[in-house]
């Protein structure tokens, strides 16, 4: 796809030599024209069971053989000089028969050996998903329980390098494979490892929001494993739509570490959205297993059918629900076109609504919308469990969590910084749906709930909030609708 000429040349069926070469390269990663057989386990590289130094030395040897093959071909012998697989320990190397190493090559090999011994303390180990023991005393989880849960999860969902989709789940495996695995392109030029390339530094391999850099960020990156997402278009705490996740990826979250991925191709974005859904469903299944096995002492071994029927399918149904039932998601009505006088009146009405007790805006955002309400200790769902009644309790709880306790601060509207986007439509949605996983409540109706405000009232509130903002949040140009909207609204 990406490298048609290169791929065609190496996959030309009419050339048996090239075909053998291509097959070998597909089976193992190329080492400069020298390819090992048989096919190794795992996605890349020789079997990880082989010690790192040995693997690297073999690689060095293969490289040297291949680099020497043009110059050192002997002139006699039928097979001499032919490219074929030649014995190399317990496997075969693709190289030139009769190729010999010169003194310079041997010196280079020695140099490589020294070099590699420097890096010998490390080796590529395919990463594993980390068991979600957040908020649990790890000593209370028996090794057998832990093993059973991990085995079941691997059986159903695979590994970070090799994801699987359990039956009944609406996930596209080809997209998952594109997002999973180590960073890089395969020999056909197809890019893999998108999640590790773009997301893992913050969200972590398991999607636990505790990536290497997470502790430095405020707010913390999202922990996908509870299946809760802040900025959605679904009411009643339902699962987000694909389009919700895609919108967050495209636009990013202004004022936070979550970037806009607008430069990525639509295919890459789709793959990332699918992988986030995969991690969420896997995480929710993991929580189900922990509840069942650890909290409720379900007898071991776990039955796959039981897990599928009791755990995976209900979760999958929730994820399908929002997509398949139009009533679940909120369609933002057309923004009313108002004259300056009408707009001023709408802002006044919004101000009055803001002060009303049924709205409860003042409690957190303060009487003037400066984020200085009476509620001072606010936490989102991901941090609530870290908060003890006393400071001592909080300190003791901290050891069972990957990241320290982080409080939540209500938005100061005067800053004009809205994480979910600064367009009037974005503010409308935030007021209507609330922000799942946080104390920000929903004001609009949801299935089974009448709602606090009508659509018109929510627009009035939106205009009032935006009238307070000095400027709106920056979003990439292709999705900016109302830069300077607040100025017009004044």
């Amino acid at each position, binding site marked *: 796809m990406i490298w048609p000429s*290169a791929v065609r040349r190496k996959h030309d069926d009419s050339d048996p030599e090239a075909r053998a070469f291509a097959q070998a390269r597909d089976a193992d990663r190329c080492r*400069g024209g020298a390819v090992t057989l048989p096919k190794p386990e795992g996605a890349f590289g020789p079997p990880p069971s082989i010690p790192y130094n040995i693997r690297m030395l073999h690689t060095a040897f293969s490289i040297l053989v291949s680099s020497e093959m043009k110059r050192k071909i002997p002139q006699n012998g039928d097979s001499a000089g032919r490219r074929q697989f030649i014995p190399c320990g317990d496997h075969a190397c693709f190289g030139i028969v009769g190729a010999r190493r010169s003194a310079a090559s041997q010196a280079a090999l020695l140099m490589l050996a020294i070099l*590699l011994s420097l890096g010998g303390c490390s080796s590529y180990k395919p990463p594993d998903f980390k068991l979600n023991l957040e908020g649990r005393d790890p000593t209370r989880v028996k090794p057998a329980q832990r093993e059973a849960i991990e085995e079941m999860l691997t059986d159903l969902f695979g590994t970070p390098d090799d994801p699987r989709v359990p039956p009944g789940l609406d996930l596209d495996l080809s997209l998952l494979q594109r997002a999973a695995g180590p960073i*890089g392109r395969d020999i056909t030029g197809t890019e893999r490892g998108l999640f590790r390339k773009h997301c893992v530094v913050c969200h972590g*391999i398991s999607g636990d929001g505790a990536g*290497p850099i997470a502790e430095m*960020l405020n707010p913390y990156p999202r922990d996908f494993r509870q299946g809760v997402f802040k900025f959605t278009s679904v009411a009643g705490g339902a699962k987000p739509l694909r389009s919700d996740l895609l919108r967050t990826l495209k636009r990013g979250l*202004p004022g936070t570490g979550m970037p806009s991925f607008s430069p990525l191709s639509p295919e890459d974005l789709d793959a990332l959205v699918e992988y986030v859904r995969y991690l969420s469903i896997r995480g929710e299944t993991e929580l189900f297993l922990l509840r069942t096995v650890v909290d409720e002492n379900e007898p071991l071994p776990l039955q796959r059918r039981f897990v599928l029927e009791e755990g995976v399918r209900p979760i999958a149904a929730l994820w399908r629900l929002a997509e398949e039932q139009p009533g679940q998601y909120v369609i933002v009505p057309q923004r009313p076109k108002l004259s300056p006088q009408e707009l001023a009146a709408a802002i006044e009405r919004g101000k009055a609504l803001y002060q009303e007790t049924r709205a409860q805006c003042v409690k957190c955002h303060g009487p003037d919308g400066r984020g200085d309400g009476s509620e001072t200790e606010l936490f989102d769902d991901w941090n609530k469990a870290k908060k003890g009644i006393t400071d001592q309790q909080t300190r003791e709880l901290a050891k069972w969590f990957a990241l320290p306790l982080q409080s939540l601060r209500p938005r100061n509207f005067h800053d004009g*910084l809205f994480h979910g986007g600064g367009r009037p439509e974005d503010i409308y949605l935030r007021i209507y749906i609330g922000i799942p996983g946080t104390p920000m409540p929903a004001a609009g109706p949801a299935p089974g709930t009448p709602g606090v405000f009508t659509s018109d009232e929510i627009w009035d509130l939106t205009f009032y909030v935006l009238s307070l903002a000095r400027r709106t949040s920056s979003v990439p140009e292709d999705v900016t609708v109302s830069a300077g909207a607040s100025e017009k609204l004044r």
Partner: protein
Amino acid sequence: MPQKGEKSVKQRGNSPSHRAGSARPLDVPRLPHYLAWALMATVFPLIWMGGLVTTYNAGMAVPDWPNTYGYNLFLYPLESWLKTWDVFLEHSHRLIGATAGFLTIALLWSLWVHDRRPWMRKLGIAALIGVSLQGTLGGLRVVGREILLANIHGCAAPLFFAFTVSLAVFTSPRWRRRERPADDEQNADENFRPLRHSIPAAVIIALPALVYVQIVLGAQLRHLPSESAPGWSFLWTILHLTVAALLPIRWAACYRFAAGVPAALGLRRWLQVFGWLLAAQIALGLGTWVVNYNFPRWFHDWVMVIPYTVVQGGLLQAIVTTAHTATGSLLLAVATAYALWALAATENPPPVYGSASRHAETST
């Protein structure tokens, strides 16, 4: 550096303080010096390209090595090379690296032919070994998919760049003039006579050493393994910030020392360049955080609220982040040049290799 050296020779010709004669240019071949400059000028863009490779996570865009998608490195089709951004970056990085390798070979050859200083030839061999090791490290990072090797590769690059700077210094006419014996009236450089209060070498070397420590710390942040615990990034960041705070202090101390040496040596100029680069580097460092992770909350609380959205893979992010990496290497290069000239100013003149070899050299 060398140009400055030549310039100062002319200046000193009219200076009353320079009474050692007309100081006419040395009759030594300039080819090694030009090649050392060419190598240095190649390695810097190579570092830029390597930085872009890391910024765009393009290190594995080409899955094989030393070939590129089965092609010989130099025969990879232009169309394919220019088609995909990350492949373009990685393949270009390899090509520039190969160019640096060829230039190193040429430099070694020129040193062998034109430079009779045995230690200089050894440095030439060291350069060849260095560039080979660095290239091999890069290749093994690809075939072994080792982020640790990427880390070492990234740390070694500025070191090699600094080494090429030292080669350019050692082959410069000004340095060669310094090596003349004191009785060589015509070519002796009076400025290089030992200072009254010599500074310990360790104090001088501390500046480039500190810069290098900072580069290594930065590399740890750039090459965080995906499974490392969150605490590591915090530790590296704190250490990185600490050394960033120490560097201006170290620089100021060096500048104070440089005030006591003859201006013609150019130490102050090196330190001025270093100072400007350091200021730019600190600004770039802060910018790197912002374009990657946005403004920190304390900035919003205490300074001002800037509604900014990070754009992953955006031009601003790529340029600022990579410029921070490249400027770090440039700082090391300037600090190395400063340290070499400062050492030359404070230490005794180097041993003379004998008049026979010297005459043979000048007649080459």
